[in-house]
């Protein structure tokens, strides 16, 4: 990539890495949370629902600060995790964590909607045919919600690519470590003569977003065909 400077390229690569990790690692949790919210009745369900959606409505700076308070090096949980070699402070993993938290509500919403569209009577039918709850989910519900899962992953990925406020508050703006695309654009705009670099990154941002959208569309359509939806 000769038309991108090393710093710009670094930001693009880091953003992709952060976003892919953020959207894929949260996926099992996202499916589980969406299933629990869609199908189970349990005490405190509204509290869980509120917590999941909180990052969507809180100012991102607040989310970032709360992350810093929870996972920062001085914080209890952050210090505890550090003993096991898991560190988020000022590292790309922190950027991924911030992006994951911010994208989580979008992912859960998309998956939850698709689970609610699957008739629970199909799971009952699977149960009468001998499938325990896990297998009923794995063989009936999961294949049927594949388009919703794809949509959720793509949304979370896109959100992660664009996440700025929580990331910069939590893990700052360190080139090569935590400087994602939006942070880099912001940094370039702060220095004289940085507009052209910023513009190139904006172009890449738009291209990645469009690419993700088209990919999700293609995959969803293929999934729908496979499900026999004519």
């Amino acid at each position, binding site marked *: 990539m000769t038309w991108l400077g090393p710093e710009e390229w670094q930001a693009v690569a880091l953003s992709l890495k952060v976003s892919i990790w953020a959207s894929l690692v949260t996926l099992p949790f996202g499916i589980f949370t969406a299933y629990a919210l869609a199908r189970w009745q349990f005490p405190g369900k509204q509290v869980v629902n509120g917590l999941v959606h909180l990052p969507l409505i809180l100012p991102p700076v607040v989310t970032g600060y709360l992350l810093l308070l929870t996972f920062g090096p001085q914080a209890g949980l952050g210090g505890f995790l550090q003993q096991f070699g898991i560190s988020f402070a000022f590292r790309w993993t922190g950027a991924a964590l911030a992006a994951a938290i911010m994208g989580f509500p979008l992912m859960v919403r998309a998956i939850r909607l698709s689970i609610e569209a699957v*008739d629970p009577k*199909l799971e*009952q*039918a699977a*149960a009468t*045919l*001998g499938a325990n*709850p896990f297998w009923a989910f794995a063989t009936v519900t999961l294949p049927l919600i594949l388009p919703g899962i794809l949509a959720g992953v793509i949304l979370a990925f896109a959100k992660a690519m664009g996440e700025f406020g929580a990331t910069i508050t939590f893990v700052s703006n360190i080139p090569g470590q935590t400087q994602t695309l939006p942070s880099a654009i912001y940094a370039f705009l702060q220095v004289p003569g940085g507009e052209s670099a910023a513009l190139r990154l904006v172009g890449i941002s738009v291209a990645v977003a469009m690419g993700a959208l088209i990919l999700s569309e293609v995959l969803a359509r293929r999934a729908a065909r496979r*499900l*026999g939806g004519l």
Partner: protein
Amino acid sequence: MLEVSLRQPLDGFTLDLSFEAPAGVTVLFGGSGAGKTTVINAVAGLKRPESGRVALNGRVLFDLGKGLWVPPHRRRLGYIFQEARLFPHLTVRQNLLFGRWFAPRGAVREDLDRIVAMLGIGALMQRHPVALSGGEKQRVAIGRALLSSPDLILADEPLAALDEARKEEILPYFERLRDELKVPMLYVSHSAAEVARLATSVVVLKDGQVQRQGNAAEVLGDDRVMPTGVRAAGALLEARLLRHHPDGLSELDAGGVSLFLPQVQQVPGSLLRVRILAQDVILSRHRPEGLSALNILPAEVEQIRSGSGPGAMVSLKTDAGRVLARITRRSAQALELSSGTQCYAVVKSVAIARSDVGGAVPVDD
């Protein structure tokens, strides 16, 4: 044998019943809201009742007094739902084999090819459910339940969502299930005609209680337990098809009495269940002459039962079996009918037990 005893408060009444279902097809018969679906879902394990016990061939499925509840996936029951509930993302073949993945090793396996041939779904194997008609879907659902090696088949109004033609298409498969397979079946229905055609034994439910239990002929002959009212009451006779006449009539033999029906689509020699609705029978003290009716049976009055209305139900002993006649009380008095009176039952219409009461075929009217 299936032993059921249940208690569950429902809207406006409490379901509280117990019954035993012998081998063969036991029809849970009753109007809507009688509690039929509650019973079958408790047996299946889809809904936990307040209290009760269900055991199948000695194997306890639940006994809430002892806190015992086997989850549905370990009960080994094949459930045929009202809507077929096929898995839309799987082909017909994959749907059929779904239960086999989970059947315990060593379970008696129904042969896929045999079931597919029996249900006539060989040409559909590679299709997805979305490309099937309502009747085809229900046939696949039947096959899917059978192939899971169940100890008991449950069917919850499996024909209710189908139109008349589709009912006619599916019913024979249930008859074959009853006659060719050893698996007992609990079949929920509100249709007297399905009872007539399928039932080995009938459990009549009303407001959550067992109102009556008996074989199909006994229950269908009792207008007091008909959920659809007196119009559905009638006699159920066994008859053998003798021959087809060139004028389009088929002759049946019921206990030495000849019955004439329009073209019956069966081969001579077949044993059939024939329904005669009580409201299609009129009585005469003398052998009627100059009457267009073809089927006239010599009879002896067994019993006359009347309620508060103008009608009376006369049960008659004939060589063909017990026949019921619904006449007015005024006529019963005018004819001086009483127990033991000799008379003639003029049958306006005889029907092969069909999928619906309304489908009775008039012979001559």
